[in-house]
């Protein structure tokens, strides 16, 4: 495949509302994960201890990117997405419209967009009546509300797509984006993910035993929220318009394993296959990779599968490894933030330390960074894994 240039990034994360705060937080070893008060959960008699960890966005002011009268129509996730989209376009030099008249679009992945409006609407419906249910909430219950508001607020008339595919959705979003950019149907695309934390969903996941602490052990998922969007365009077109290329997405592949849809399905052969396909599409081999952004998310069996896949593909090599989910949590947005961190790290030639637990003893090729370190030679591999057996890999150079 032809390389896709990343020329802008916007990120709203539990570590802050800018990419600079994201990197500074990771470099300093800070965590954006904190305990939240969950009165409904306590009332429901759930074991509250340990299931109150959340990667919440706490330092975000929507009025920086939207007038208040417009912002109030948008749900929380849509506000994140619009703010991140505007930041990405600003960095890419698109503010002021140098690509006006061209086909620009957006593809967002999500695990939870619309959950706030959904629960608010249904609560009113259940407590009162259909006639009392708030009409303004309903349009924002659809998962594509954030992408739609991005298109509306930025005037993007190309595709406005939303993919809902658990935590690995960024891989499928990149595949879909490459197909639309590859044959010129789009001049540029914002690709990323958005999530919104919701206490009712937290309760549901806790009841299923999916969250850190809920099952009594040290492992488990922490729900994250935020948005990260990357502006991608064909490299030759980016260079022709004089844009600064932060890094290039060289290849991407996605695959899956069959099994129960609502479980984590650790499967190292599938992840190894996906890594090899992504390398192949990049025109690279294992020896061309120098660093990796791990998918590791605190699910012990998944981390073991990831370790095994990397040991198999990169036997005899050493990869500087980083990973962000220990600092921000997991969900679709974590994949987009992982890609953002890979691109930003390449642009500044410095990898942030690995923010993860010690659940898994990483095998020989994987060298988790204890502190920020100079980017080693070679491409950066970014791994994505989601429940239901979804895996993806991207090669960034």
């Amino acid at each position, binding site marked *: 495949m032809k390389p896709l240039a990343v020329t802008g990034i916007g990120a709203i994360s539990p570590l802050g509302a800018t990419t600079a705060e994201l990197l500074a937080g990771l470099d300093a070893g800070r965590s954006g994960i904190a305990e939240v008060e969950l009165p409904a959960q306590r*009332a*429901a*008699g759930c074991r509250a201890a340990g299931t109150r960890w959340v990667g919440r966005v706490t330092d975000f002011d929507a009025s920086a990117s939207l007038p208040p009268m417009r912002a109030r129509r948008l749900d929380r996730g849509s506000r994140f997405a619009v703010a991140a989209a505007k930041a990405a376009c600003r960095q890419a030099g698109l503010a002021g419209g140098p690509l006006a008249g061209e086909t620009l*679009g957006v593809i967002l992945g999500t695990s939870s967009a619309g959950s706030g409006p959904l629960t608010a*609407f*249904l*609560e009113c*419906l*259940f*407590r009162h009546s*259909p006639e009392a*249910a*708030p*009409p303004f909430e*309903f*349009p924002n*219950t*659809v*998962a*594509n*509300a954030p*992408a*739609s*508001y991005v*298109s*509306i607020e930025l*005037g*993007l*008339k*190309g*595709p*406005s*797509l*939303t*993919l*809902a*595919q658990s935590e690995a959705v960024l891989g*499928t979003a990149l*595949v*879909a984006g490459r*197909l*639309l950019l*590859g*044959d010129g149907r789009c001049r540029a695309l914002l690709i990323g993910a958005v999530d919104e934390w919701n206490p*009712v969903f937290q*309760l*549901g996941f806790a*009841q*299923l035993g999916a969250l850190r602490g809920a099952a009594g052990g040290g492992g488990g998922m922490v729900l994250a929220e935020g948005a990260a969007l990357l502006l991608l365009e064909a490299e030759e077109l980016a260079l022709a318009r004089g844009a600064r290329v932060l890094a290039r997405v060289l290849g991407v592949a*996605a*695959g*899956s*394993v*069959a099994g*129960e*849809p*609502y479980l984590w399905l650790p499967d190292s052969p599938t992840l190894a*296959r996906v890594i090899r396909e992504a390398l192949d599409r990049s025109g690279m081999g294992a020896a061309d990779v120098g660093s990796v952004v791990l998918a590791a998310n605190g699910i012990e069996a998944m981390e073991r599968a990831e370790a095994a896949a990397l040991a198999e593909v990169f036997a005899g090599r050493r990869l500087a490894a980083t990973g962000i989910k220990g600092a921000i949590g997991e969900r679709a947005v974590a994949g987009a933030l992982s890609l953002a961190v890979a691109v930003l790290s390449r642009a500044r030639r410095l990898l942030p330390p690995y923010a993860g637990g010690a659940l898994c003893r990483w095998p020989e090729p994987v060298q988790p960074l204890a502190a920020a370190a100079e980017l080693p030679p070679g491409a950066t591999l970014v791994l994505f894994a989601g429940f*239901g*057996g979804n895996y993806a890999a991207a090669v960034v150079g």
Partner: protein
Amino acid sequence: MGGAEASVVVTGLGAVTALGVGREATWRGLVEGANGIRRLGLFDPGAYRTHNAAWVDDRALAGALPAGHPRRTTSRADRFALAAAREAIEDSGLDLARVPRQRLAVVLGGGAAGLLEAEGWFARLVLDGRPGRPREIVNHGPDLPTHHVASFLGATGIRSTVATACSSSTVAIGQAADLLRAGLADVVVTGGSDSLARLTFGGFNALRLVDPEPCRPFDRERKGLSLGEGAGILVLEREADARRRGARAYCRVAGYGVTSDAFHMTAPEPTGEAGARCLQAALAHGRCDADEVDYVNAHGTATPQNDRAEAAALYRVFGARAGRLPTSSIKAMVGHCLCAAGAVEALATCLTVARGVIPPTIRWSNPDPECPLDVVPNRAREMPVATALSSSFAFGGASACLVLTTAS
């Protein structure tokens, strides 16, 4: 291995709709102008503005599901998708044992999947202060039918779930064809599944977009939509592969347009400019002239503003010929199946191209000067259709359109 010029065909179709379980039951209903919209039996609709929907009676699904499927751990939307996928694969004649599993992809449109069940869990939390059983929420999420279908097929290729509201499964079919053209899969099972829920029933109720009576697309007296549910599943392959194995093809997926209105979250862009842009993108991608189009399977929701905007878009694309171009909305029969609407309508359009019969717009009696279209009123029409459009216009302005043409 694909290439930009590779032609993609539809080799298998499966359906679950209010008109019946199965492709032929659905098609028979469409051709006969049958009405699937009736009093809702899934929950009490008494307090809503309409009591009607085109809903699927679960009992009819029994014989259509894959053998041994775990009924207790699937939602209604999962079961619609599984039944339709099983039928589509059988119809395609594919021997799955001969398809490398990592080259088998599943791309579906999804939305309220598992929501009706999850609503029970949440209602208990809201009203009693304690949540329902975990089993009620495990299948909640737009992507769950995709996973269930992929697991049933043993597929390990790309899985993707498109969630662009009412255009979800139209986009999914377009993406499926893209994957095949790019050589990223050999067989793609695509389409979509969606089921009714209190959220969607209550949401359109709150927006005052429902007709208390069964809907009347493009009729001057139309008052809004009737919701529906179901699944449409299509098996897509590259034409060369299909021909090599001697498979019959219903039609080609010649082109796909996907655009944004960039206008408003719920209101359609009223001049038809945005809708026309989508149809023109699909025609350009399919390298078709507007003059070649024989039939349009319209989005035709039957809300006053949507049908008006759609008619305006058709006039922008086809000029005065829009008034003579057969354009029907099957939503008067199967309801608005939301995230499955595009799949059910694409399936109907595949059969129109393959069989030369255009399903009618039923319940149409009052011409609307703002929608001066040939809506194929009330009776199916036999005529050869070599090139057809199937279009979807969604909340948020996410528009999509497929160009389906005769397979050689």
